[in-house]
């Protein structure tokens, strides 16, 4: 875990996230959102959780980002109008950030280095998913199916609407 890699990735994530939050055009924001998530995946790699990083890229860049750009495309009339910016949110966000940073740097137990661990293999994750976490896994499957059907019903053309 090298410091240079940490700094580069951290700057990438924060810059891309700031761009996603503040760029006026929706498409640019959505693309910087994808970049930020690639950066977070790189962080997971750095932390030794390769599998989570790969899942992150797969789900967020491959699926969620594509969903977002499709939604932007379908609601295009709105996407080109510039967005009003509410400065109240900035104040609240900075206040929350100050509070969090104060808490993090005031806790001495957090200034520890990483211990040596044996790498977490995909096989191990699979075993754990199929033994200790088999019920959560089934529940997530159920939630995803429900979300799929729910999303489909929400956007289905209403055949007998009066308009």
């Amino acid at each position, binding site marked *: 875990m090298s410091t240079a890699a940490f700094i580069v990735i951290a700057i990438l994530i924060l810059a891309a996230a700031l761009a996603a939050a503040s760029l006026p055009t929706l*498409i640019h924001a959505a693309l910087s959102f*994808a970049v930020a998530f690639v950066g977070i995946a790189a962080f997971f790699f750095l932390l030794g959780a390769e599998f989570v990083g790969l899942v992150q890229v*797969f789900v967020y*860049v*491959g699926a969620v980002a594509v969903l977002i750009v499709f939604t932007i495309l379908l609601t295009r009339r709105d996407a080109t109008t510039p967005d009003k910016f509410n400065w109240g949110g900035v104040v609240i966000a900075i206040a929350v950030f100050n509070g969090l940073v104060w808490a993090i740097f005031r806790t001495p137990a957090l200034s520890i280095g990483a211990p040596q661990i044996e790498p977490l293999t995909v096989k191990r994750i699979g075993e754990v998913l199929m033994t200790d976490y088999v019920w959560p896994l089934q529940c997530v499957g159920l939630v995803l199916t429900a979300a799929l059907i729910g999303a489909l019903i929400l956007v289905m053309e209403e055949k007998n609407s009066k308009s």
Partner: protein
Amino acid sequence: MNDFLDQIFVRAKQMLLPLLTGAPDWVIQLASSLINIFALLGVFLTLFALISVLERKILGRMQNRYGPNRVGPFGLFQPVADGIKMLIKEDIVPVRADKVVHFLAPIMIAATAILALGVIPYGRNMTPFAIDGGILFFFAVGSTTELAVFMAGWGSNNKFSMLGAMRAIAQMISYELPLIITTFPVVMVVGALSPDAIVAAQGGYALGVMPHWFVTTPWGAAAFILFFVSGLVESNRTPFDVPEGESEIVAGHMTEYSGFKYATFFMAEYFGMFAISGLAVTLFLGGWHAPIAGLQFIPSYVWFFAKLSALLFVYIWVRGTLPRTRVDQIMNFAWKFMLPMAFTCLVSAAVWHYQGRGLAGWLWSLGVIVVVYVALSRLIDTRKKFATRTYRFAE
């Protein structure tokens, strides 16, 4: 001697690295990665040049004409001429284009295609980047191609580009499901996500001649065919090239690109094709293993590239043979046939495994696939039933 030839590239790399002794650790790591990257790029750029001219020659042969035969012996230097032509063309960017997105799209599409090539084992000890979740990496990188195609379509600010991009994304998302699900049986039977482990599991020979490739089992053969068809769609090749159908929407998402950017798209398409075929070889055709035990003296990478070339030839053959399909046909085929068959392969592989992986399992799993195939083809048979012709007048 055999071993020497087999490992010659690995040895060469090991000879190069000691030149750096004394340098810090990260320099050596970086150098090692760079050697891998340059070897990969060198090999596949050469292959790209070769395949692009061979494709035109083979297509020419299939259509009863000469292919390119003017530049160099047998027209083999055609790619050089094409490259120079592409490089010196004017690079046109539309005035109303989203400049940044328009510029980044070809870079991103080429980068994803090259990254996907990195996890495939090309020979014994010859995986450029051996990571534990290699298959997942391949698909994670592959799925970002959709975003790149969208960027190309949106950035061009052109109706044809946007239509082409929408078509491309729709069919890529639809066929990504069968593509990924057909790899599940292999991953399940091997019990690992790493391409090296999958290739290792296909080593050895039954009765001294039959290789243990997964394509020799019924579920493997079915999954291989499904995987290959999905691969055709993912790389936007004929007969599934509606995203860039010349007769309908000019060139799809590449309409507004010219010069070197267009060449980058072209290259990315071929690299994507190499990556998908390479993964098909790894998953189903035994990777770098020799087909017959007696032929093991030939180096492993030769076998890998022979199989890869065979698959690429089939790609070209299909292009020279089949007409383009309609959009609705592609979608119906994906959701009504490919997806159920992909799940059937999974069930069939489970049956094969629990019947002891022997002859009984072989027959049972064949049975499962045949039953589902027949049932499906009965169910989705949408041919018009013609009645006998009757005339209202002039009887």
